[in-house]
């Protein structure tokens, strides 16, 4: 076996200890230690953003709750922070198109899924525009969803492109929903995406899914930026 990131040999000698904790390891300890999990006692209850001790919700989530009276997204769970190392790895994975790197996150995604969600959830990856998809050759959200051994429902479509760049906060919160659903859906839905930034994209997707029959919508994102 070779580390998926640095290609170093990681064929470990079998010891009693790792006999009991057999895990599919595909990166070396060095590389693994450079990722940072989202943690801390004061995280936004909804989206896991670090917040001050006096509040339960971050500004964005509070706004959704207060301004629009209802939030289409029940909960977001993120695994890693967007530290410099993660930025490099994601640049390689998404922009350079090094697909194999998805397997780096297999354990983390699987463990997080079983800790927070049930097998009855229906997995819906955030789609890419056709243009992006053909450029990249794969959809990173779908690639991540595939790490969980459950069927995937590609019911969302993008009507216009991903570019979110320099919009004001209000514009972002109220911008036109870029998704449509090409199929009805029901029950509890779990949206999968690579990164949670402001939550707007995810909530637009969530709203679309609710409009098409979803009972509840949550999200699992690899990174909380």
């Amino acid at each position: 076996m070779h580390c998926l990131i640095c290609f170093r040999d990681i064929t470990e000698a079998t010891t009693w200890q790792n006999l009991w904790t057999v895990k599919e390891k595909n990166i070396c300890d060095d590389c693994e230690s450079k990722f940072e999990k989202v943690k801390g006692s004061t995280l936004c209850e909804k989206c896991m953003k670090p917040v001050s001790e006096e509040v339960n919700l971050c500004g964005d989530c509070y706004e959704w709750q207060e301004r629009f009276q209802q939030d289409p997204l029940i909960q977001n769970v993120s695994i890693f922070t967007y530290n410099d190392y993660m930025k490099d790895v994601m640049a390689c994975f998404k922009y350079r198109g090094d697909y194999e790197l998805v397997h780096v996150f297999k354990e983390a995604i699987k463990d997080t899924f079983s800790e927070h969600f049930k097998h009855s959830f229906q997995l819906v990856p955030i789609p890419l525009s056709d243009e992006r998809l053909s450029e990249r050759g794969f959809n990173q959200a779908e690639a991540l969803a595939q790490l969980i051994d459950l069927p995937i429902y590609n019911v969302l479509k993008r009507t216009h492109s991903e570019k979110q760049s320099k919009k004001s906060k209000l514009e972002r919160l109220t911008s036109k929903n870029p998704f449509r659903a090409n199929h009805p859906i029901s029950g509890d839905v779990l949206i999968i995406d690579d990164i949670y930034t402001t939550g707007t994209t995810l909530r637009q997707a969530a709203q679309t899914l609710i409009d098409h029959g979803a009972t509840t919508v949550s999200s699992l994102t690899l990174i909380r930026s």
Partner: protein
Amino acid sequence: MDANQFSGKLLLKHEWNLDDELFELWLQKKWIQEVPGIVRKFGVTMCQRCFNTEKKYFGLMPGDITYCRKCVAMGRLSEREPLYRWSGPENELEPIPNSCAWEGKLTPLQEEAAHAIVRTIQTKKRLLISAVCGAGKTEMLYKGIEYAAEHGLRLCIATPRQDVVRELAPRLRRDFPSLTSAALYGDSTERDHGAHLVIATTHQMLRYQNAFDVIIVDEVDAFPFHKDRSLPKAVNRALKPKHALIYLTATPRFNLKLQTALKLIPTVSIPMRYHEHPLPVPTFKRVHQLEKQLQAYELPKLILDWIEERKGRRFLLFTPTIELAQTLSQSLSIPYVHSESPDRKELVMKFRTHQLNALITTTILERGVTFPSIDVAVLLADHHVFDEAALVQIAGRVGRSADDPTGDITFFYEQKTNAMVAARQYTRIKNKEAQRKR
């Protein structure tokens, strides 16, 4: 658009930067030809860009499409994403006489090397210039560059190290103002539109085929060129069938030394620095349990004494690992740099401009960068990362300026290694050789 600016290129579709219509047209005209990205032959899979055949460097994408992970940083090449090579009209460079604006004077030894280079370019042969650190390699190239420009030959200076490209390009542009040039490396944004002079990392050679009349490989023994077998292959592919290939190094590795010894490659040896002072000979200082002490944040007296003796002269401390650099940095309150430090350029600049008096570094500063008037110590000189070439290069940082041609180079170690002895031997031999040339 001048089509022949593309001659010699081997690129992914998007790298051509052409609109779809023109790209299709040129494909039809066979000015651009498709080259499969990944080829399977006799059970071996090979990347057609970086020559990789190692299984661990191939990846699979959805749809069972194989792609090469080794060169993916240059844009993904897969069974579905081929390369395209230029097969249209060839670039004919405008000959430019008297392009060299440099008015300095070469030493007799530099002169000798310069002539050998011109002769090699004329006769389209190979040449090794084995010149000590501080011999003034760059100026030795000038006559060759001028000759190439005058005869419309495309010349590339390739080096394994980005820093060298960054340092060399502005100098060459200043001294050859009438030549078109391109400096190419990982994050440079420059493009080569069929320039007279290309200054590039050896990695960039992977984007060329049949492009250059002359390639000069500077620091041919540096990482990763000597370790990565794909890079010499890439250099060969980037050359035209009739070409001159010139290697420059202070520390030729075994393979080149052997070729010299067997007279397979003409070799010019420059054992003397341009200022004609001898190379500083390393002093060996043995410290019992050096590694343990350093790791425990303890500083051996011998090392503290050495620092004390600098008396305000600037110095560099080389360590074999990043961890040790970090530990030492804490114990001594001296900043450290390594290949991934975000503030690397800034710290080096501060050291250069005397805002810093001392700097701890891993082997990244072993070559390419020069500072006048410094002393150097290597801590754990017996560590395996310090091979002969590395130690010679590190010692070569000392006494670079004509105004201050001496300085101290000390190796601190626990157990003497062959590399240390060989490095000291190297300086002595070169100094003797230089004396005979005087």
